[in-house]
């Protein structure tokens, strides 16, 4: 059950006292606070049993699971393999998956983290009050830790922190890319990982075994489970639509009545800067990520003389899955037949999906908005206004934004008292993106030095961009990914302003009905559901909340009708949508021009859009933003058009084909055009700035 508007506001308000909130954070790298890796480790266990299974016994439990036995039996009788051979195969799979923790390795790794961390970070900040709240609630329920995922450091950090706070280190679902790294695979396993393949399709045995392993972890094992609900590291630092696969595997035992409840803990991990930053940027532009290799990892370590600022970790309030599902959870329904013979219904999967969204929501609420997020935002806004920023103006701007974000309910790292220091320090850390070229000069984008000499053309995900486009793209995408974390807070209000702008325009500035606004927003939400992780069931709640916030910010005057008054706050909020509006518009244009009456696949479209933008960049065209080159953006546009049937999707054996619905798409194009025309910004200024660099 999603929270009602009332208690939602309360929980946000409760934390409006940011000063108090941020002061709960303790830097655990500080002398005297770092975990003593040699201490006796007697962690609090999430569950107590009469007898605790060893990791090997856990594998045996899974192997003996009747469903697995059934499958092995039928495999042996339906194929040429003998029972012995299939059993062996199953055991190999279990060994590939299974936990095998080693405390000595954990201690050693922890010491490394402290040492390296102290060198490259200015601190790992943990919200102590909240982690202790979680620890106090543990003891008799399976627990799922679901952290946001922005960096591989998430893996390491969680275990380190658990060790520090005497919480049992959870089993961490890790991708096979680590498994295949020499040495790394077994290292991570020893520090708590278990492995999962990315694609289960085609291998029934693997899938079934993994599923049962997950069940056994939840039902029979005494440690928590950690996995990333977003499925992968979000390359663009925006929240990703939650994946339900692992979550439903983990929750199945609750539906089947095998555990009384499951405690779900959203964990928010925020970074001033992640190690993978530039990798992500090039990946977003279509240069594929190098296959994880130990060598690559070591090379990455060399980079470690850079500064990465702070990391923040906050454990959200544990969600009782049972309470969340409320009366929708019908366990009696499943009590008639042995659990292993059952599957969840579509409705139940939908419930789990809602919980997934809730978790992402809760993660986002606690992701710290860093000073650089606000700097990037404010800089970008000023590009649209075609104004330059001195340090002083920048600091002022950051404070204006801090004010707005405080009101929206975000946790902002920047402090008014030390704003100058905060800003300078941030720019120092991100000097590869923004800098003040000389003392007293204005803030500028950095012209990136990129070598893409070893790019393998065959593995390119999109179009092979020319150097000019690439440079432009790298610098703007680097900037944009730091604006993106703000989107969680501003996309809702911004979309509302966009709708109001249009309504106001249609009524020549007069007030309009609330319902009209609501209808427009529903329409926009449908288009941007994937981009901004909008779930239908929260729509009304968000509508009310945003309306209220905007009225506090004096953007809306609410009587029986609504009057929209444009002010600077409105413009600031609105500016955040520009890259997305441009991108969606360009994707539509490309489809209509290139693929109007033929089938196309995803790659065709990625290449076509990138080509189009590349060609347009030199010509100071309308409604182009270099962020349109980001493949993630194009993909989510396509996903949105498919979901809303502007484009039809046809899944074939090994390829997915698309075909556009021309008349529908045309009307969407016109809609977007109207929105774009109303924006009070000079959108193509970016291209100009870069070309001057």
């Amino acid at each position, binding site marked *: 059950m999603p929270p009602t508007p009332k208690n939602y506001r309360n929980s946000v308000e409760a934390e409006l006292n940011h000063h108090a909130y941020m002061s709960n954070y303790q830097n655990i790298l500080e002398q005297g606070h770092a975990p003593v890796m040699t201490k006796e480790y007697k962690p609090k266990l999430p569950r107590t049993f009469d007898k605790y299974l060893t990791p090997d016994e856990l594998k045996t439990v899974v192997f003996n699971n*009747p469903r697995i036995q059934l499958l092995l039996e039928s495999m042996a009788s339906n194929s040429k393999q003998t029972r012995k051979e299939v059993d062996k195969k199953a055991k190999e799979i279990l060994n590939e998956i299974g936990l095998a923790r080693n405390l000595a390795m954990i201690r050693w790794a922890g010491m490394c983290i402290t040492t390296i961390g102290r060198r490259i970070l200015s601190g790992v900040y943990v919200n102590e009050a909240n982690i202790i709240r979680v620890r106090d609630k543990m003891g008799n329920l399976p627990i799922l830790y679901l952290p946001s995922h922005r960096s591989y450091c998430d893996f390491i950090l969680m275990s380190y922190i658990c060790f520090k706070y005497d919480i049992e280190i959870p089993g961490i679902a890790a991708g096979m890319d680590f498994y295949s790294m020499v040495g790394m695979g077994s290292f991570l396993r020893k520090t708590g990982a278990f492995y999962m393949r990315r694609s289960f399709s085609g291998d029934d045995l693997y899938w079934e075994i993994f599923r049962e392993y997950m069940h056994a972890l939840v039902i029979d094992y005494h440690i928590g489970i950690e996995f990333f609900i977003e499925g992968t590291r979000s390359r663009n630092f925006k929240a990703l639509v939650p994946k339900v696969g692992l979550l439903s595997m983990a929750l199945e035992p609750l539906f089947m009545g095998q555990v009384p409840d499951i405690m779900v803990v959203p964990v928010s991990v925020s970074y001033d800067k992640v190690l993978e930053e530039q990798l992500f940027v090039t990946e977003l532009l279509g240069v594929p990520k190098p296959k994880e290799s130990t060598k690559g990892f070591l090379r990455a370590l060399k980079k470690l003389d850079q500064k990465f600022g702070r990391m923040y970790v906050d454990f959200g309030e544990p969600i009782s899955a049972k309470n969340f599902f409320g009366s929708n959870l019908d366990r*009696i329904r499943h009590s008639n037949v042995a659990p292993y013979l*059952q599957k969840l*219904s579509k409705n139940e999967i939908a419930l789990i999906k809602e919980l997934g969204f809730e978790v992402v929501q809760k993660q986002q609420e606690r992701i710290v908005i860093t000073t650089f997020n606000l700097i990037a935002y404010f800089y970008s806004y000023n590009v649209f206004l075609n104004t330059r920023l001195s340090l002083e103006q920048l600091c002022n701007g950051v404070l204006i934004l801090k004010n707005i974000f405080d009101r929206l309910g975000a946790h902002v790292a920047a402090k008014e008292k030390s704003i100058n220091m905060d800003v300078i320090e941030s720019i120092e850390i991100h000097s590869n993106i923004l800098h003040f070229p000389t003392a007293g000069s204005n803030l500028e984008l950095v012209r990136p030095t990129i070598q893409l000499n070893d790019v393998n053309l065959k593995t390119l995900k999109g179009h092979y961009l020319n150097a000019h486009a690439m440079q432009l793209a790298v610098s703007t995408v680097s900037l944009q990914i730091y604006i993106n974390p703000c989107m969680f807070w501003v996309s809702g209000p911004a979309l509302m302003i966009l709708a109001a702008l249009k309504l106001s325009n249609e009524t020549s500035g007069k007030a309009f009905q609330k319902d009209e606004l609501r209808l427009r927003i529903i329409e926009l939400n449908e288009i941007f559901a994937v981009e901004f992780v909008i779930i239908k069931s929260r729509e009304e709640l968000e509508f009310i909340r945003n309306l209220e916030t905007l009225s506090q910010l004096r953007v809306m005057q609410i009587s029986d009708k609504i009057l929209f008054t444009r002010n600077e706050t409105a413009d600031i909020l609105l500016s955040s949508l520009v890259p997305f509006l441009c991108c969606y518009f360009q994707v539509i244009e490309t489809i209509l021009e290139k693929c109007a009456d033929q089938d196309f696949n995803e790659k065709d479209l990625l290449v076509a859009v990138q080509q189009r933008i590349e060609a347009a960049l030199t010509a100071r065209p309308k409604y182009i933003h270099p962020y349109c080159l980001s493949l993630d953006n194009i993909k989510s546009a396509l996903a949105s058009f498919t979901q809303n049937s502007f484009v039809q999707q046809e899944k074939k054996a090994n390829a997915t084909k698309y075909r556009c619905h021309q008349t529908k798409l045309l009307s969407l194009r016109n809609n977007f055009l109207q929105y774009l025309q109303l924006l009070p910004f000079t959108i193509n200024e970016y291209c100009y700035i870069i070309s001057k660099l």
Partner: protein
Amino acid sequence: MATNLSSGSVVDGSLSKEVKSVIPRNRQDVLKWYGWGYKNAKFSFKNNSITFEGDQYTLGGQTLPHFTKWVEDQFDFKLSDIERYPNIPQEFPEPKRNVPFLESLQSTGILFSDKGEDRLVRCHGQTLHDIYTLWENSYERIPDLVIWPKNHNNVVNIVKLANEHNVVLIPYGGGTSVSGSITCPQNEPRMIAIVDTSQMNKMLWLDKQNLTVCFESGIIGQDLERELQKLGLTVGHEPDSYEFSTLGGWVATRASGMKKNVYGNIEDIVVRVKMVTTKGVLERECSAPRVSCGPDLNHVILGSEGTLGIVTEVVLKVRPLPPVKRYGSLIFPDFESGVKFMREVARRRCQPASVRLMDNEQFRFGQSLKPVSSWFHSAIEKAKQAYVTKIKGYDLSMACAATLLFEGEAEDIQRQESVIYEIAKKYKGFPAGGTNGERGYILTFVIAYIRDFALNHQIVAESFETSVPWDRCALLCRNVKYKVKSECERRHIKNFLISCRVTQTYDAGCCVYFYFAFKYVGIKDPVGTYEAIENAARDEILACGGSLSHHHGVGKIRSKWYPKTVSETGVGLYKAAKNELDPKNIFAAGNLIPNEHDHHTKAKL
């Protein structure tokens, strides 16, 4: 209301197993349309001897000279090789068409047929009356449509549409009913659709930990057992009709299997059952072994004889296949000693999987079914007969036999055997070997073919059964035989056979099974006559403390006694349930409650 209709199944469909049945959808391709069993299996008279054909059975291809003699002696006539089996009709009563129903049904994609032959072969069960009417081609009313649902959801759809359009539905399993329960009601003005369950025969799941299995209701006994035995398991429910009768039929009639002592009767084996009614799905929502939750509604479904809804899925207990199976037989000087033996076995609760006691007529009849074999073997048989008469001094015209089937672990069987033989000794019984016992059980499935052969030679034959408290068992057998004899004499029927056996034992009583046959040459209305005599016998049974039925059910032919058996209050309760679950009476097979308007049993012959 029907909440579980919408919630759908929780079971992972990928675990279900399609079962290839020995009986095709077009059942007449493999089964006799005019009688019992496989098309190719039958008794016939050739070269002066009766032979049995049918490669499905061990007796197949054997010549039976003793049996030939037994028939000729018993009914006092000479067999001829003329065969009078009927030809399948080419014309059929026009089907009634409820057009809106047919149109909606069409749109569901569920398979159906209104071909005459499909309708005819499903208009009847296996009572003498059913078969005789077929031979005479005198059905006035046959079903108008045959529908083949493929799963529970199909059935839900069918029932919904039928209820909307007021179409009568008759659930049809194996058509082996011997109570008239499946026989098409002759005076039904509405369209009648047969819901043939044969295409819903999947094994939905198997739970080895709890030893339970879930099948769709249309699976026939032999398919069910074959599939489970492949996995080293058995349900162990073996009614004599189990080659052709279905799980749904067993539930709907409260069937009883030969090996109930080990595995239980159907009501002991069923854990859960799902029935689609016009008001929704009735199902006990719990798999726990026993519950105290008000009257057990499973028992509303069990024995409902197709009048309340359609059984779609059934969860059954399974058992590990017994490692050892052994037969035995006993001979007693007379029937009453045999009954005392049976009573003692029941008192000591030491029944093997099956123990059956045959009276003298059946004992001799069984002996006669021994095939000819080498002279050496027949010499031994002769010697054995001599031994039996001479050495023990038993009068062969009095002696009776019991057959035994043991199943279980070797040590357990050994123990059981010694107890049984010890008890037998007390009642002057002595062991007569495993082969005799085994033949008794093998013949079980062959005996049903005799009826068609008999009819061809103008002998009508039928069985009827009852259950009775121990103290009245011997008395009931005696009185019923007396009653049948005197009824025959009254009607100048000279050549007849009345015989009985005790087929099941319980703590408080037993099941008695009668065979009755007579040669009807010179009798105008043989079936009417047969039924009149059987009715007289049933009155006698009831008077002797016997029940209306131990396992065949009430159906139409015994419905006139139903009110007496369950009391008027009971009838009221049944009617209230019927009214609740099926207010429009679309499940109008007309079983259990006597139907004033339907004179099926008096249909023109």
